């Protein structure tokens, strides 16, 4: 397992974990933040795979803006979700 493959494996596993956490946690604010983490990990993975432009966009748009939109909406709406 070269260093790069290990790094790759770590990101993949952690990304799936982040996705599951983001969906299962009851508090929507946490869910939004964990979704931001998920996007950031996705951006790291793509950078490692050579897709630099896509990684940059995902970092700016995915982790950045969509997390902000989610948080903005959660503030204007009920914070705790039933499921």
């Amino acid at each position, binding site marked *: 397992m070269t260093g790069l493959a290990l790094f*790759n494996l770590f990101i993949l596993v952690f990304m799936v974990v982040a996705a599951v956490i983001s969906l299962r946690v009851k508090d929507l604010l946490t869910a939004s933040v964990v*979704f931001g983490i998920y*996007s950031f990990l996705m951006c790291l993975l793509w950078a490692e795979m050579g*897709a630099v432009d*896509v990684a940059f966009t995902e970092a700016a748009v995915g982790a950045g803006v969509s997390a902000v939109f989610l948080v903005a909406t959660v503030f204007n709406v009920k914070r705790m979700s*039933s499921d």
Partner: protein
Amino acid sequence: MFGEDGLLNELLVERFNYCVYVVLLLIGLYAMIAKNNLIKKLIGMSIFQTAIILFYVSIGVKEGGTIPIYVAEHDPHGHHAEHQAHPEEANATEETEENATTATTLHEEDHGHHGPRSLTDEETSDYANPLPHVLMLTAIVVGVATLGVALALTQRIYRAYGTIEEDAVLAAILAEDASTVIPDVLATKPKRTSSKSRKAKKA
């Protein structure tokens, strides 16, 4: 399919990326349909879309291929066009390129022909395939746009029904339906009001 080792480990070991994309896709799809909270559905939707983007990007990966930006010696604007005239300008372009790819030795090449030359076949295999990356720029942007619109809808629903739980919203809608009364414009029961007075009332 799961029994004999050929297919499964070939799937698992070589294409771990594809497995993760499949898992993420299924998580996103399940969440989008099953989750009761509207925002959870939207998070599921985003995960679903980013999974597809992961699949596309992993199509374009090439063994040992660097990022799809020309290294120094293939660079159309780079040094080899006018090698002698601006050595420092050529070096300047190199520093600004942040991509810390392997240090490209400035090996001498015949620069007889003017202007950038198209790369040969085996040189093209050095670079990752740029097409999926372009497609995915669009997909990410579309994903955010859909997320934005969906969040606006969630707020609109919250403003009208006070909740963002799908079952609660449905209950509120059914209650609202039951209470609407159909304005029967021409229902003139002879016994009740004569048409004259009804018209007067309407005018």
